[in-house]
């Protein structure tokens, strides 16, 4: 599904990822752990080419999704981003109604007719277990929701455009325990249809949610050591062989 080949990324002279080669199979949940500033977020962002607009951001190597190099000059970036959904650390809802938020992406991409909007909204809101909480207040401003609800709303908004890959950048770090477990449970249920990459700081969370773990390490002088303990997976640790280097530089 997702294949990094000798991938590296740098902001100007500062390299954040170097020589990464690894594979993420379809319908798997991979947890990515490691200290901050080690290129975890960059790894997710390059998958939907979010860093295109950052001046002096450079990459090397290749990234393939479904066998296609996504950094070709003729890549349809918008189609790519529809295929790859991303959830951020802090939930971001638009100051519009809940309903408008859910169909925000659908509206523009318009793959379904307007009549189907409510159905689509209901479907994805049910998927994120938010339907019962908001079904009576779809016209209210989304900003009135709690943080946990907002994060689930953001997830619903992303699911509504039916991405194949879900990138979650510490989606629970700003949430209370209850919302956290709701999101964790939810992610499990999404596994059947999506390939999920999940950045987290908590090892327990990684172990309970993910099939596999990719760890970005920072070992004193030599920051280059790859560690790839694999949990709850049928296949024995392909990552250990694949992850030759996860190289990070801290300043």
């Amino acid at each position: 599904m997702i294949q990094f080949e000798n991938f590296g990324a740098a902001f100007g002279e500062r390299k954040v990822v170097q020589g990464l080669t690894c594979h993420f199979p379809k319908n798997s949940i991979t947890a990515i752990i490691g200290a901050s500033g080690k290129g975890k977020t960059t790894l997710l962002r390059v998958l939907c080419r979010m860093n295109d607009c950052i001046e002096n951001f450079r990459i090397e190597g290749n990234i393939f999704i479904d066998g296609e190099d996504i950094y070709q000059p003729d890549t349809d970036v918008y189609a790519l981003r529809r295929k790859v959904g991303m959830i951020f650390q802090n939930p971001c809802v638009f100051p519009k109604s809940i309903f408008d938020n859910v169909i925000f992406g659908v509206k523009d991409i318009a793959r379904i007719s307007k009549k189907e909007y409510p159905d689509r909204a209901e479907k994805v809101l049910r998927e994120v277990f938010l339907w019962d909480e908001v079904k009576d207040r779809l016209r209210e401003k989304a900003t009135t929701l709690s943080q946990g609800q907002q994060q689930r709303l953001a997830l619903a908004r992303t699911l509504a455009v039916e991405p194949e890959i879900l990138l979650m950048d510490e989606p629970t770090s700003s949430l209370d325990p209850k919302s956290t477990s709701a999101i964790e449970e939810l992610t499990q249920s999404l596994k059947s249809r999506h390939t999920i990459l999940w950045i987290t700081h908590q090892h327990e969370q990684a172990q309970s949610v993910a099939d596999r773990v990719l760890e970005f390490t920072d070992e004193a002088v030599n920051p280059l050591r790859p560690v790839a303990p694999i949990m709850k997976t049928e296949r024995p640790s392909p990552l250990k062989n694949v992850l030759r280097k996860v190289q990070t530089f801290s300043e």
Partner: protein
Amino acid sequence: MKLSYKKNFSNCFSGQAHLEPLAWIFALMNLIFVTGAMGLGVFLLVQSLPIMKAEGLDFWLGENWWVGETYGALSMIVGSLMVTALAVTLALPIALSAALYTSEYLSPSLRRGVKGVMELLAGVPGIIYGLLGISFLAVTVKESFNLLYGNTLFTAGCLLAIMILPTVLTLAEDALHAVPIEYREVAEGLGLSKLQTALRVVVPQASSGIVGAILLGIGKAMGETIAVLMVVGSLDRIPGWNLFVSGQTIPSKLGREAAEALGSGLHWSALMGLGLTLFFMVSILTYSGTRFTEWSRR
């Protein structure tokens, strides 16, 4: 380790952006803006070429401006500089100390009140200041300095000082107020008094904003037309060191003769030359201001 990084795709036409009509419309709008801005300068330059050819350096060094005979802009340049210098000398110390007091000592509600008044006054039209100038200031100047007439360079300078005061004050205050509160806490924690903190910590931190405010004030004073035109006396003569005589500034000269000179060859060109001179003076001021801001940020 190879370092042959791919160029990323961050250029303006990333992906399919160049296929969007909106991109082209916006590019067109941008082109209009650039053409307009550059056009202004180029137009002034082209239009003033005949006078440069005819008068050469004497255009800037000549004292006599006799339409149809000779065009020397020195008296207007000197007048502009004197009036601006006077306005700045009067307004700056007052505006800056008031800004410091407003930012560092006033309570939030009082500060908002002062800022409100200043922002309203910064928007009062030049024509209104002109009206105030001819009705009150010119008469006051005439009487308090025992002059024969009130339309002097000094009157114009005072009027400009009052005009730029609110602008400089409110912008300088913004710059001071934007300095994070932590700086002040640290400095006061080290035992500095409030005034020392303000002068040694806050003011240097805000220096680029303050310089910006000052330059904007100078630019505004230099370019003001209508209010100056109404009180300056409009006499094309180098005033020497005496501020209490009538004189002429570049904008007031332009305002008076523009309609008449239109299309009349060398006279129009001479006015354009004046315009170009003014444009250069203000542009250099603005440019050095932005450069200073960049430099001080580093």
